[in-house]
């Protein structure tokens, strides 16, 4: 019998990187399926091309030894799927391939691969195409078009390096409601048309030109949160802070600003909050930091949406918060056990004398009173805290 010598712990929780990534991919599957059901062939092609491009790029950089990790860890699949879901469903495929390449090459490989990326790769890819192809990225095809499974939306199949065909024209030729080709956010922003409650409800289930269904994303995200594959604090903080900021502005002038529910459920806020901001490598690890990070994203999103020239603000909000992550982490380190205010009072030096805890219970009353958990009412009084020369 040969024995091995290894340092403790000798057992290991069954979770590993590939498993975490795999679960995120699994949880994205219903979202993708509904996305394809909504937009048909174009969406399917977009998902496949963008993800394929991400995987090929990852393979290239891993093969050449530029980045850590390997292709089997599924992280490139997540990047590809999220990128495709955040792009318009009929985005020209060649542009999608470029976006995938940029996402992995600039967003991930440049900084050393999995775990080392500063920015969410999918958002880096999207930011690039937003800057490079502003017109294509603002054009949404309406969902549930008749015949969406038999033919592509013409913009999907644009020749590489060519601009896509005009979607509005195509819609007119097909005699469809061309208005729906603008997202509710863009229509509010540029045309001053606010989505009504009915429209909001239909957009919740993905019945408008909005991309993947927010309700489905919330559902799939909560599965991940329950299984602890993402931290619930981040989406909670984002939605909370975005909702609060939007509600505050709405309360100040209801005629200028849309109501907070519209803010929360339109555009990519839910997708960003659940799947993109929670990207592990680019979000803080400390619980307090997660709250700060989420609150920052929510606030920035609403500010960008209200005051900038862009219809959507989630992407930039998350990228800015990604950049702030190291700083946030630095100032929100957890308090170690035994270093809190109460514990400091009874600070004792190991091996030297043992100054007594001021909340010390005498031997006689010991059996009647038990030291309680720290609450407002049994915090030591101020004068007890500062007895000169006694407890230090």
């Amino acid at each position, binding site marked *: 019998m040969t024995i091995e010598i290894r340092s403790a712990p000798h057992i290991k*929780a069954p979770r590993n990187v590939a498993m975490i990534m795999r679960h995120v991919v699994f949880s994205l599957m219903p979202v993708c399926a509904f996305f394809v059901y909504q937009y048909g062939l174009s969406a399917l092609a977009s998902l496949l091309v963008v993800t394929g491009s991400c995987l090929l790029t990852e393979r290239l950089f891993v093969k050449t030894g530029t980045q850590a990790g390997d292709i089997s860890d599924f992280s490139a699949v997540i990047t590809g799927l999220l990128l495709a879901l955040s792009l318009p469903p009929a985005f020209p495929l060649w542009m999608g391939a470029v976006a995938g390449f940029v996402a992995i090459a600039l967003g991930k490989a440049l900084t050393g691969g999995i*775990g080392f990326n500063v920015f969410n790769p999918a958002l880096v890819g999207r930011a690039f195409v937003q800057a490079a192809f502003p017109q294509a990225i603002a054009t949404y095809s309406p969902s549930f078009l008749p015949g969406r499974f038999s033919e592509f939306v013409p913009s999907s199949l644009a020749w590489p390096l060519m601009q896509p065909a005009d979607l509005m024209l195509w819609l007119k030729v097909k005699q469809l409601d061309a208005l729906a080709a603008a997202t509710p956010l863009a229509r509010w922003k540029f045309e001053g048309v606010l989505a009504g409650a009915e429209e909001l409800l239909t957009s919740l289930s993905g019945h408008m030109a909005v991309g993947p269904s927010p309700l489905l994303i919330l559902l799939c995200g909560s599965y991940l949160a329950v299984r602890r594959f993402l931290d619930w604090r981040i989406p909670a903080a984002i939605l909370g802070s975005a909702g609060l900021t939007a509600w505050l502005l709405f309360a100040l002038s209801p005629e200028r600003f849309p109501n907070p529910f519209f803010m929360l459920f339109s555009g990519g806020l839910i997708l960003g909050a659940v799947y993109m901001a929670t990207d592990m*490598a680019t979000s803080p690890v*400390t619980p307090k930091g997660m709250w700060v990070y989420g609150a920052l994203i929510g606030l920035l999103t609403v500010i960008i949406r209200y005051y900038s020239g862009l219809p959507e603000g989630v992407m930039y909000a998350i990228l800015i918060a990604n950049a702030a992550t190291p700083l946030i982490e630095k100032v929100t380190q957890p308090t*170690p*056990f035994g270093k809190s205010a109460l514990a400091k*009072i009874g600070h004792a030096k190991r091996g030297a004398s*043992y100054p007594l805890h001021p909340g010390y*219970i005498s031997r006689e009353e010991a059996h009647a009173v*038990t030291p309680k958990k720290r609450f407002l009412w049994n915090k030591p009084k101020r004068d007890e805290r500062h007895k000169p020369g006694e407890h230090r």
Partner: protein
Amino acid sequence: MKLVSWFRGEAFQRGVHPPSCKLTAHTRIRRLPFPPRVIVPLSQHIGKPPRPIVKVGQEVVRGQPIAKAEDWLSVPHHAPVTGRVEFIGLKPGMRGPWVESIVIRAHPGATQEDLWGEPRDLSGASAQEILQAVWDTGMVGLGGAAFPTHAKLSVPQQAKVHTLVVNGCECEPYLTCDHRVMVEQSDDLIRGIRYAMRATGARRAIVGIEDNKPDACDAVRAAIARAGTLPEGEIHAEMVPTKYPQGSEKMLIMALFGVEIPAGGLPVSLGMVVNNVGTLAALGRLLPVGQGLTERVVTITGPGVARPGDYIVPIGTPLSFILDFAGAFDAQAKEVILGGPMMGQAAASLEVPITKGISGIVVMRAQDMQLDRERKIYPCIKCAQCVESCPMGLNPSMLGMLAAKREYDLMGSRYHLGECFECGCCSYVCPSNIPLVQQFRVAKQILREKAVARKSS
């Protein structure tokens, strides 16, 4: 004791839930026969090793002192078998390097009864006399840390102790020796608690038992009821929610009372003394008969063992003898762990003996360790699992990154490396297989060496 019960729902924050795998929770403690020779290492505890007082060739009787304590943090040893001293010198130790040991060849047919020591009455003894009696037994903490018990029970001049906390948690997977001791030796345990209460002056003792062993709690409560009203004060058994690492005294006090022991402080600064149930049960058995510690209960278990169980093992029995007896060589055993799988050490050799601080021998096969096949180490993906699980509230992710950059001083000064007690929760949960706690051990060792160098220069 309603208050403590009220806190039952309140455990400490964070921690992990490894699979408990208590294979031997319901088998009775059995006795192991004597090996042909026992190896008693002189250094079995924290502190200076004792000095041998026997010569090679000398006949010794089971229970006879064979090594004498040198200073305060050192305890005597007693002969575990009746036989002849064969060798005094270096033998392989459990940590790898060779250690000074006394080898005794057992007489064939020697009895397992202790032949040394005589009954005594400690009912009127003062705290000092009880401490001296504890010291004479050579008792160290049987939970694993092996800190001399008399030193742990002695209360500093200025401090007053009001509570004796008895640690019956046994949060490590696989280990059940404390569990079985509570079930089968609960009267000894109560007697030991009474001695410890007299030694420390505590008026109250609380046995903290994890709620995955309700039968142990019932047994201890029954024993308390049998003991009736005690002159020393009152004893209670309390259940605490199961979680690793509750066996740590800081975590147990947090779970029972909801107070944090100050960083760098000891429980005695809050008026508490913590002792392990195995230690107190052994004290309760040994003190009235005036004998020394010659044997202890060891859990021999793991998926690689054919006949797992809790055994009374003479101190100094070589691992190979025990494993042979328990049938570990039939399976494809891969790793022999001394202690539990979370904090125990891998045995460097099968010729090393059982010492006073070893509570279990866990034999693992390769497939049970749930390690990745190739044990591929990924970069840290900052999943925050380690931060969520660190019971001391540290940031193992950050510490690990600093360790990789060899920024040991920064780890100690800014990120509280000194607070880490190496429970291994961070390494257990890390999905990237980063050996976090292993890195911290190295970093702490380097910091310690640096501090020593600074002091001497």
